[in-house]
Each structure stands twice: as C-alpha cells, then as structure tokens.
C-alpha cells in the first residue's frame, strides 16, 4: 500500500531519473578513434568558412560584395543619443526596430557569396526532382508555373467570409465592393466600366502542370470565381472573362516559362474585349486603316525561369515568339489621352508592350485593343498590384489636376485573376480638385 502511494506521489524521482539518464547517456559518448576531433573540426570549419569567404570576397570585390559590417555599425546609436538618455523610454527608443534587423538579416543572406555559388546548383537538383522553389513550380515538359497562380486556383474561395477575415483589417479583401464602388463613381461621370480578370496560367493549362488534368476541366478556377462574376452581374457590372476564349483554341495560349499569355492568345483576348466594350457602351465608329501591324520575332527568358536563379549555362532556354507591332502613321503605336477608352492594366497588358519586360514593344494588349476597336486608347499600366495600383495612379493624376477621365466613354480594367485572392481592393475616391 505504501509502495503504491509512494509511486503515485513521486514526480520528483521521475525527474531525477530523466536527469540521470541524460547525464549518463549524453555525457558519455563512445567515439571511434579520430572521429571526435573530425566532428569538431568539420563543424567549426564549416560554420567559420562561410563568413571568412564573405569577408575575403568583400575585400577583393568591394563594389560587388557589400560590407556586411556596415549594417551592424549602423545599428549602434551615436554617442550623443546615448549621452542624452534620461530614462527607460529613451533606452527603448535607442533600440533598432525589428523590421530593420530583419532587413539586415535578409540582406546578408541575399548577398552571401557562398549562397550565390550553392543556390543555382541546389535549385538545378531540385528541378530534377520535379521541384521548383518558393515562387516557381515545375510543370510537365519544361513548363513552369508561378506559385501564387497555382495557389489561387487550388486555395479557398476568396469571397468566403472567414478567408477575407483572415487577411486582416488592414486589407480590403472584398473585390466586389471595390469594383462596384469604382463603377458607381465612373457612372457618376457618365463613363462605363468593363472588368477583365486575366486568367492565370494553371486555369488555361492545367494539363501542363499535372498529369490527369484536362484543359477546360472542372475546378480550374478559384472556388469563389463563379460567385464573384455572379455578384458583379447582379450589381450591373460588365465582366469579360477571357478564359473560355483561351481554352477553346487548341495549342498553347501561354509562354512555357513565363506567367503570361502568348501574343496570339493576347490578341484573341483583345478581340473579345473590343467586342464586349462595344456591347457595353456606345463608342465612336472604328476608323478603318488607322492602324497597321508589323510582325517581328522576339526572344525572351520567362519571368518564372528567372525566379529559379539557375546558373546561366543551365538556365531554361529562351523562348521565341512572333509579335505584331502596331503602327499608326508609320510610328509605333502610342496611347492617346483624349481617347474614348482608358485601359487600366497590369503585366498582362504590359507584356509585348513595355520593352523592359524583354518581350518586345508596341504589341501589347492596349495596342491590339486599339486595333480591334479601330480607335485610340489611353493607358495606365503597372506590373503587379492590379487590384489597386492603376486606380491609385489614376486618382493621383486626378488630384494633380490631370483629368485622365476627360472625354472617356469606357474604362477597361484588366488585372490578373490571382489578385482577387491576394490583392488589396482599396476603395479609392476619384476626387478632382478635392471633390468626388
């Protein structure tokens, strides 16, 4: 009986037993001859070699390799600030911000000479295992996919209440609210709105991502996309979804190693947009013969391939595509501020238009929309953040007194569909001279 009671009330003994076990098992280790020293030296050499190599590289190539000590020295408060400390509050203020420390840590890691040498080789091996990296996924037959695109399709519905709540109070997660508000404001000025969510690559080419997936098969859109279109329809917002147009044509619609569409697919979308635009509002008649196109071949490296950071000799091969540059009076096409149509677009509009993207110029979505409408088009474009960036640019111009909506009949708002799930759908007032 006593024994039983003692066993029940004996937490201390159990603890000591664990301590004894640890001391007995960890404190005494059996090593084969030479292994103990080998382990110690191997470890120390490995962890010391990386900063030493970095230091040597910084000395040899100061212009290429940053001085990693400079950032640390920058954290030390100056003598004056230290002397002025009068209380705990002053001490707290002297401490660096967490974000600054995080940035320094990221800079060090990014600037690592050893990392620079190791990363492409590891990445190549991972690709051989069918794996990309944090941003890129490897598909079939050399196709690459942007992670955010895939997650948009496979993820929870972006209109689900809990999904929106999880995104936090600082983000306006409801695209319907922002779009309807924007439409209302435009309507107040007698301007129509056409919304064009550019389909992400996995929606159009699931078959190149996963074996067994069919082009045009079910479930290749985010679970909330249908509801999104329905709600906009109920609110009277005109939506042109290019997905069906792109799926029905056989053959590739997107670049193999890039997030964006091929020139031909983009032109088909431009044609669809033009048709939807004319159905949505009354536009001036097409000016026949105003524009002509010139074919040109361009080569480029896909943006997803670049995300993989492979060694140049092992990188994905460049892709070659035929673009059709748009000419107006023997000059490359230019946007016109006085045009009846304003295109707000992201990289889906910029590709083949903005030379800096590496896929040629004057052959993008705006240019071909212009051709299909037979009208000039005004453009505000910025890669990324299609949920708010272009509207914000428009608002800024209005505030500066440059009324880009003057004389407009229609605003076409193109954005990547993944923005519906990840973008900040700020409600922005279109104020001119301080008035909405």
């Amino acid at each position: 009986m006593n024994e039983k009671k003692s066993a029940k009330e004996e937490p201390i003994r159990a603890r000591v037993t664990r301590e004894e076990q640890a001391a007995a098992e960890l404190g005494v280790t059996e090593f084969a001859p030479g292994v103990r020293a080998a382990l110690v030296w191997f470890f120390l050499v490995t962890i010391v070699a990386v900063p030493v190599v970095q230091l040597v590289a910084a000395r040899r190539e100061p212009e290429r390799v940053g001085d990693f000590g400079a950032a640390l020295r920058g954290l030390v408060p100056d003598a004056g600030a230290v002397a002025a400390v009068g209380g705990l509050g002053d001490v707290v203020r002297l401490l660096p911000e967490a974000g600054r420390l995080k940035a320094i840590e990221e800079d060090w890691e990014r600037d690592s000479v050893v990392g620079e040498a190791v990363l492409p080789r590891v990445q190549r091996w991972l690709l051989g295992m069918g794996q990309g990296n944090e941003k890129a996924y490897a598909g079939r037959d050399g196709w690459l996919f942007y992670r955010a695109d895939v997650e948009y399709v496979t993820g929870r519905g972006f209109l689900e209440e809990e999904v929106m709540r999880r995104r936090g109070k600082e983000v306006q997660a409801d695209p319907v609210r922002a779009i309807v508000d924007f439409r209302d404001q435009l309507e107040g000025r007698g301007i129509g709105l056409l919304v064009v969510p550019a389909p992400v690559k996995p929606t159009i080419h699931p078959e190149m991502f996963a074996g067994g997936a069919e082009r045009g098969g079910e479930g290749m859109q985010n679970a909330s996309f249908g509801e999104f279109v329905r709600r906009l329809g109920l609110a009277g917002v005109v939506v042109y979804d290019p997905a069906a147009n792109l799926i029905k044509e056989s053959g590739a619609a997107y670049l193999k190693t890039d997030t964006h569409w091929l020139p031909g697919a983009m032109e088909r979308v431009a044609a669809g947009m033009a048709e939807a635009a004319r159905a949505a509002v009354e536009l001036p008649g097409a000016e026949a013969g105003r524009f002509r196109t010139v074919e040109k071949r361009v080569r480029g490296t896909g943006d997803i391939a670049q995300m993989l950071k492979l060694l140049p000799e092992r990188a994905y091969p460049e892709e070659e595509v035929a673009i059709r540059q748009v000419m107006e009076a023997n000059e490359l096409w230019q946007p016109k501020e006085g045009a009846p149509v304003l295109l707000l677009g992201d990289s889906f509009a910029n590709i083949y238009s903005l030379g800096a993207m590496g896929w040629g110029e004057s052959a993008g979505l705006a240019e071909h929309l212009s051709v299909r409408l037979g009208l000039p088009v005004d453009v505000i474009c910025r890669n990324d953040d299609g949920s708010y960036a272009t509207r914000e640019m428009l608002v800024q111009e209005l505030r500066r007194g440059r009324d880009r909506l003057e004389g407009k009949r229609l605003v076409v708002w193109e954005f990547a569909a993944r923005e519906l799930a990840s973008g900040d759908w700020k409600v922005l007032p279109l104020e001119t001279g301080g008035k909405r």
Partner: protein
Amino acid sequence: MVFSSYLFLFYFLPVALAVYYLLSRAGNRVLNYSLIFFGYLFYGWANPKFIFLMAATTVVDWLASVVIAHGTWRLWEVWRAPVVALERGGERNRAQRWAIVLSVVSNLASLGFFKYFNFGVDSYNALVASLGWTEGQWDSVFRVVLPLGISFYTFQSLSYTIDVYRGDAKAMKHFGDFSCFVSMYPHLVAGPILQFSFLAEQLEGRRLTMDKFARGVAMFALGMGKKVLLANPCGKIADTVFEAAGPGVVDAWYGVTAYAFQIYFDFSGYSDMAIGLGLMLGFVFAKNFDGPYRSGSLTEFWRRWHISLSGWLRDYLYVPLGGNRCGEVRTYVNLMVVMLLGGLWHGASANFVIWGGIHGGGLALERWAGKSGWAVRGPVVVRRVVTFVVVCVAWVFFRAVDFESALRYLGSLCGMGREEGSVLIGGLIWQRYYWVSFAVTAVVVWGMPQSWDLTRRITWGKFWWIAAVFLAAVAMLFAQSYNPFIYFIF
C-alpha cells in the same frame, strides 16, 4: 533568431562559441554572463523591445525566490546569509506565500495578456454579435504582439520559484546564474522547458569537454537535417492541402500525415539542435522526444511527445490538482483539465482547446479501460496504427486556422471534400521531391533510431552520414526561404 538560419549558423554561433571558449578559464560565472549577453542578443534580434519583458520576469522571479528562501521581504538584512533549500512539505510563512503568489500571478498575467488578449477581444465580439448586440462589440485597434518564446520562458521561470517554494531546489544566490537559466539561447524560444532543479548544479559547475562538444555537433547536425530536409518538405505538402478549397480523401490523409511528420521533425529537430548546442556549451539537457509515433496508446504517446512540457504539466498542474490520488472520477477530470490547459498553452484558439480535449478524453478513456482495454491487449501494430490515426485527427484541429476549416478538413478525410482543383493539388503535392521526402520521413519515423541513441556510439561510418546530412541541410538552407519553426509562435 532561428537556429536553421544563415545569420545564426554562420555569424552568431561562431562568435558566441569563440567568446565562450575564450572565457572558459575564467570560471562558470563569467561563462554564464557571456551566455546572458548572447541570450539577450539572440532573443532581442526578433524584437528588441521584448528583452525588457524577459528581464522584468527574470528580476521578479529571482527576487521572489530569494524572499522565499529567506522567508522575509527585508532582503538587505539577509543579503549575506547562506541560501539553503527549504524543508519539503514544511510550513511556509506569510512572506513566502505572498512571494510565490507574486511570482505565479506575474508570470501568468504576462502570459495571459500577451497570449490571450486578442483571443479574449475576438471571443467577446463573437459572443455579443451572436446575441445580436453588435453595438456592444469592442472594435479595438490595439492588437497585442506575441513576444517570442513567452510560453517557454515563463513556464521555466515558474518552475524555478515553485521548486524553491516546495523545497525541491535551492534558490540561486546570484542573479546572474538565474538570469542565465532563463535566457540561455539554446532553449530560450522553443524549449525544451528545463525545470530548474534539473539545471541548477550545471549552472554553478559544468565541464566543457571534447566528448560533449563532438556529441553536441552530431545532435545539432542531425537536428538540422530533420528540420530542413524532412520537416520543411512535409510542411509544404501540409500547407498546400490544408489551404486547399476541397482536397480529395487520399490527398487529405497524405496532407495530415505530412503535417504529423512536419510538426514532429520540426520540433524534435529543434530540440536536438538545442540539446546539441547545450552540449557544446557544457550543459546536458534531458530528452524531449522519444519516438512518439511508435506509441501504442495516447498514454504512451504523452510519455514520448514533448516530454518536457508533459513533465511540467504533470509536476506543476496534474499532481497539485490531486493527480490520481482522489478517486477515479477526479482523475479523469484532472487529466481533462491538464490537457485542456495544455492545449490552451499552445495558443489562444478554440481549436487548441479541442486538440487538448481530444487528448484529455483519450487519456481518460484509456485509464478507464485499464489493463483489460484495447490499449493494452490488442496487437502492437494495430494499437500503433489506431493511436497514430487518433493523433492525426487531433492534429487537424491543431493545424487548421479555425474551427470551420478543421471541420471541413475532417470532411475531406471522410471523402466529403469538394475536390475543386484537386488535380492541381495532386500535381503539387505528389511531385517527386515531395513524395520521396515523405517516404524517407516515414522510414525515419518508424524504422530508424532516435538521434539520441544513434549518437551514443559514433563510428566513422556515422561520421560521414552526419557530415553529409549537415552539408545537405546547409546547402538546402540557401535554396529555401521557407524555414519557420512551428513552435516559435507558441
């Protein structure tokens, strides 16, 4: 700072070790001061402002312990008096009782505020909204940021004052030694939760040996391999499936099993690294994991999983509640209370409470079934499979972001998923790298010895394995920015 990070591995650790060993002839107290300095640097790197909170906790608990040891608040009168352990079970005076109350309340208050304030506000708002009184909601702009590792160091600090009060340990006369116990970087932010009586002697007198350092290197290297090479790819599988709109039944089981592997190797890898670092610094920490997925019952699982937490809960909660000494029903209630609070310790959410409830209910059920129950009688393979499945189902609540998501996931496990985009999900999670990593992880879970046992005798063959694992983990570190430790958020 994270152990498996570029900054820690290649800058912090070499400098901290160099300083430590350069000071090794100056005695343990000086070494403790160097550990305090690097501990605060390590901790403050995530958010420098929180070092004040840790310092305040340390000061309050140390002062409380000295008051308890001397039985008076008039410390200036007993400053030079020797400190002795109190008699176990002996009478405590008013000052001692108030000092322990101060320590317990201050620790729990700071833990409660930082960990549960947001949860409290959200729960209150949800409650008043459900009653239709939306005007009564508190739209608080003020959100509390959780200090890193607060759950771990408050529990450790508490174990110190409670041990001193109970007479299980002697109070630390030197503040520096106690501060070192709290802020020692190997175990600071994610444990193992070291009970003070376990470490007291080592703080005052420990030996640095080549044997310990080499064993520490082996433990650290294997721990890092577990984290970077096994836990991270399994984590990617789990993240993809748990975030999916409606995974199919096979993908759902694959996802939850991957999560079970992830959390085990993430945390046991961290514990191995902590134990390894401790050894490099001359400390011996106790085992924190012991092959938990080989358990044939939940009771056995909790003897093998996060042993330092279950030990803490047993010694400072279950036993004081009466343990198994107050009859059968009370024992079940105690088990349930301990596991519910254990769940809440992990995080402020109903899901963690449910997770604790599943385990508490399971433990009570096994105890009720006794020696004639399935948990003892059935074939060992069946018992292990059943236990693993129950643990996995409980992990669903642990991993899912909210209750509704957990229910949805359980639906997918039962084949009721919407399977939207499931072909794409399959394309993601069945990539060769992932399923090979998953298969290797399964082999390590059920077919390989623990790092602790593997490194008891290190041959040249094992050396090459350890070196290869470490180098592969370092190489992979450069290619992965995905490197979170799950237990950092607790």
